[in-house]
């Protein structure tokens, strides 16, 4: 490596330098990833030649100028990023990228979790997935129909409750995963508690904290995806393949239940992808049957969490009472 190369790091408050990174990424065909907290850059003289960023536990925007590739700049950038993450106490790290970079990141100690049809991949820096699968395996239950539901429940409504009740009826045991991110209006801790309280009358359900392996569309990075029209599809693909190939086998899941989606096109497409990916007979792991459950309606419209948030904003508690369980109502009143 040329001795005139210098490295430095800074955080998102340094607007001038952040702007330079943005420009650099754009020149090599990448978007600027939103919400990076820490940046590392390499400069040759005054010219930016490589960069990388950390957003929570995800490395983003790692790039080297095309004519400076093969010098090992990426290794220095990655070392610095890992140091920053560790010094912040973040030890589980993830990279979402295109699969042509797998080997590159393997050389930095990252391991492949899933490569979806050579279109998108996810890697992590340690054996966390294996550990998590071991934990899940302990929660395994016997039965012919082992159902599963993944929900955000922002917040938990009578619609969610109905879905869980119906799924539990059709299953010998039901595993319910709560998406773990704090970007929704209701914090994870609260969403989780409201779900637990709202399903406490059902005897054959386990409520699991979601993990880094249930990929929320709120945290899914999209800056490296060239065809923006395919963002939702690629997110669904990665999330569902990780679910099918890793989480489901650990628990012996045979079915996945989902509410029909009358309003939101994104969710509706996600459900369509779900059928395609989970039921595909040629996958690496057993297919999972997808069961759509008709959404429950109240006064001619399906109950949705977005409606709850709307009513909450205008404080229409009498309306709210009709579409959330008493447990959620109590929480909303005390907010």
């Amino acid at each position, binding site marked *: 490596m040329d001795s005139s190369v210098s490295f430095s790091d800074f955080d998102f408050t340094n607007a001038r330098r952040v702007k330079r990174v943005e420009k650099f990424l754009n020149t090599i065909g990448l978007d600027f990833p939103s919400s990076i907290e820490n940046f590392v850059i390499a400069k040759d003289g005054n010219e930016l030649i490589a960069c990388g960023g950390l957003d929570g536990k995800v490395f983003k925007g790692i790039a080297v100028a095309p004519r400076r590739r093969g010098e090992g700049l990426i*290794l220095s950038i990655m*070392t610095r990023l890992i140091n920053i993450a560790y010094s912040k106490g973040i030890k589980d790290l993830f990279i979402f990228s295109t699969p042509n970079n797998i080997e590159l990141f393997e050389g930095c*100690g990252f391991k492949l979790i899933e490569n979806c049809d050579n279109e998108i991949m996810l890697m992590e820096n340690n054996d966390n997935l294996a550990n998590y699968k071991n934990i899940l395996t302990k929660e395994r239950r016997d039965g012919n129909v082992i159902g599963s539901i993944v929900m955000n429940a922002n917040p938990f409504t009578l619609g969610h409750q109905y879905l869980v009740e119906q799924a539990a009826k059709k299953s010998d045991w039901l595993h319910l995963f709560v998406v773990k991110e704090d970007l929704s209006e209701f914090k994870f801790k609260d969403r989780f508690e409201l779900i637990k309280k709202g399903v406490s009358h059902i005897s054959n359900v386990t409520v699991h904290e979601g993990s880094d392996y249930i990929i929320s569309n709120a945290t899914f990075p999209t800056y490296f995806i060239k065809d923006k029209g395919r963002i939702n599809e690629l997110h669904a693909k990665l999330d569902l393949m990780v679910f099918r190939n890793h989480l489901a086998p650990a628990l012996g899941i045979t079915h996945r239940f989902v509410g029909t989606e009358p309003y939101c096109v994104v969710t509706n497409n996600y459900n369509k992808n779900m059928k395609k990916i989970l039921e595909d007979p040629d996958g690496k792991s057993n297919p999972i049957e997808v069961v759509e459950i008709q959404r429950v309606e109240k006064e001619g419209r399906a109950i949705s969490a977005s409606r709850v948030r709307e009513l909450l904003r205008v404080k229409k508690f009498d309306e709210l009472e009709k579409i959330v369980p008493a447990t959620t109502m109590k929480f909303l009143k005390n907010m």
Partner: protein
Amino acid sequence: MNKIKKRAYAGTLESSDAFIEIEPIEEDEIRIELQSSVEEMYGDDIRDLIAKVIKEMDISYISVRVQDKGALDYVIKARLQAAILRANDDKKIKWDKL
């Protein structure tokens, strides 16, 4: 002491260096995971070296992960020693023992 207190690391991913991460484990076991750019030629030697350094430092419960980019023996040894000392917050280092 035979156990380490916490997770620690030392080194870099750069050429001729090694990035070493260590972690305490419950079992009485020395777990070594090596990825090396010179695995074919020196993989076993590097694993032997790591086991030897760990033994010399009296540790018997440890997980070690090494990303080696062709580091020389004494570099690997120094990186591992540094990680172990960091893991135990050792202020009084017995240099003659290292």
